[in-house]
């Protein structure tokens, strides 16, 4: 698909970093304010999709896009599973909350919830970006 006009390109250059930062903020404060892993993950995917929609898919290396999103999605899923298995290694149960709980309303509090939010955020963001690349922005033609 082709890119858009000069106005859209200038505004996108200024805004895409701020949207990415907003997504990271919603993931990190998932246990204090509304949001969490899923909301932050889809916002991160939306910032990358905005970049491709504004500048067109002509100058985008598609193979590297597939490679990096596959790596990040697998890392996110495996991290979530490892955090869950850690409680089993300690001998109590699956998904046991083993980190110290801390004080109320602090950023490093309430056990494994911030780590799980981070893993799910990475996984959902990379997965939705790979879906968009395959459906709407691919440039390959089929070999007859």
């Amino acid at each position, binding site marked *: 698909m082709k890119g858009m006009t000069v106005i859209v390109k200038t505004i996108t250059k200024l805004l895409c970093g701020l949207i990415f930062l907003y997504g990271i903020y919603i993931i990190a404060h998932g246990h204090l304010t509304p949001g969490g892993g899923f909301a932050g993950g889809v*916002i991160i995917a939306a910032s990358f999709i905005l970049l491709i929609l504004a500048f067109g898919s002509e100058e985008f290396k598609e193979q590297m896009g597939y490679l990096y999103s596959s790596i990040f999605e697998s890392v996110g899923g495996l991290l979530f599973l490892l955090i869950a298995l850690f409680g089993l290694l300690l001998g109590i149960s699956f998904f046991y909350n083993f980190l110290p709980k801390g004080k109320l309303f602090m950023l490093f509090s309430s056990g494994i919830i911030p780590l799980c939010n981070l893993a799910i955020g990475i996984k959902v963001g990379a997965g939705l970006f790979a879906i968009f690349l395959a459906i709407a922005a691919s440039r390959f033609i089929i070999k007859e």
Partner: protein
Amino acid sequence: MIELYILLIVAIGAGIVAVEIKDLLASAISLGVVGFSVAIMFILVQAPDLAIVQIVVEVLTVIIFVGVILKTTHIDTTWTKEKEIRDYLAKGIFAFFAIFFLTFSLLAFKELPGFGKPIMKIASHYLIKGFEEIKAANQVAAVILDFRGYDTLGEATVLFTSVIGVLTILRKIGKTK
């Protein structure tokens, strides 16, 4: 809650427009109107987590629909073909099913506790325990990651499977344009 009923009427009207209109781009935009009014209804029933996720997911759905429509056909849908006996049979089956479903659902709604008065037997226990033992301020995050963490693992698996499915179906072996 008069705003809830107004938004429900807007959503139903946009749904009928999205299904019946002949132009494909217009029906994709009407789907966006339905999703947006559902997101505002989520705010009115005091669920801010759901509103954030619903707005972004609805925008991504409309983008994917428009991407598919602009890539394949710009022209409208197929409504000039003649109607066979199978089309009338399908409409008859739908009417039968709709009457059946409406009757039984109206009978079942008498058993529900009514709009605005839920029975919170387990939820009151979760609300107290989530604040004093886990020390999390957001109770919905405490429910999905600590009390019901196994369901979140199942959801991660389903999302992974759907991404693998899309990338396998649309795999193209060839040269770039």
